[in-house]
């Protein structure tokens, strides 16, 4: 019980660092150097956790997530739009937990084209050109951002 109380205190401290919009220091964590981890949940509460190649900055309140495979995540999002993503800064290891709400799927447009170019570059660096093909992008609204590790 004491263990639970101690960690609820830790959680309260972290809540002081809640933010609602993307800040400049998060941008390097969105350049796909460290892959981001994404969790979704089905309508009946079964989670799915996977890596995503790209969490792309759209504006201070929105990101776009690349869809390459994502069958189970996509099924979950069609039932429940809530997403949790972990972002990691490649130099400092600063970590953020970002809560998102899925808004729409897009198959073309300027954001799609920019992400397609970036993904081609990532795939080339990893020698995975044949495996990394952008099928679509998920436009998501940021509902909460919490710092998990401050990088110091």
């Amino acid at each position, binding site marked *: 019980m004491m263990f639970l109380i101690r960690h609820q205190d830790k959680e309260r401290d972290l809540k002081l660092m809640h933010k609602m919009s993307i800040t400049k220091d998060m941008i390097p964590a969105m350049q796909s150097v460290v892959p981001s981890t994404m969790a979704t949940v089905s309508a009946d509460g079964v989670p799915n*956790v996977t890596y995503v190649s790209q969490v792309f900055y759209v504006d201070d309140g929105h990101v776009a997530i690349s869809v390459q495979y994502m069958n189970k995540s996509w099924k979950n999002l069609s039932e429940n739009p809530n997403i949790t993503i972990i972002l990691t800064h490649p130099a400092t290891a600063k970590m953020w937990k970002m809560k998102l709400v899925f808004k729409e799927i897009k198959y073309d447009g300027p954001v799609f084209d920019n992400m397609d170019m970036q993904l081609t570059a990532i795939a080339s660096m990893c020698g995975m050109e044949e495996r990394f093909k952008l099928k679509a992008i998920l436009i998501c609204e940021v509902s909460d951002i919490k710092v998990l590790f401050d990088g110091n």
Partner: protein
Amino acid sequence: MLKSLPQTVIAVLTNYYSAVWLSCCNNDNRPLIARLSSINIIDSETICCCIPAKFAAELLPALVKNQPVAVLAACTKTFDSYQVKGFIESVHQLPQEETAEQKNMLELFSTALIKQGFSAPNFFKAYVDDEFVAVVIKVDDVFDQTPRQGTGFKINA
């Protein structure tokens, strides 16, 4: 239904250079996620996931018996990845004498990242804690998550 965890999956789940994560959902049906320090194999269909306490705070109320969970393990060398789905059997604080092994796993993981150009001390500090929560999971299904054709397929189908 899973008969036993394949050796290829066990190798990725337990390697120190694999990045490992656990996900469950809260009462509002929102996904929760935590970085793990390690995964131990208890028997052919039961695993124990250790969560550094600083990542477990939000999950603790949701980590209860029979809660469905998903675990992701991805090898940072080969990109081989597997997702394990199952149900929680029990949750307990890891005894103090077993925390050294968790810190050792995180140190080995962080050191392995040097070859990829990352700072080992920074990543070790990001992941490590003095206390760990152990979550025992009965595994139901295993999915191949490696980025290639066939990803997402159930291995034990």
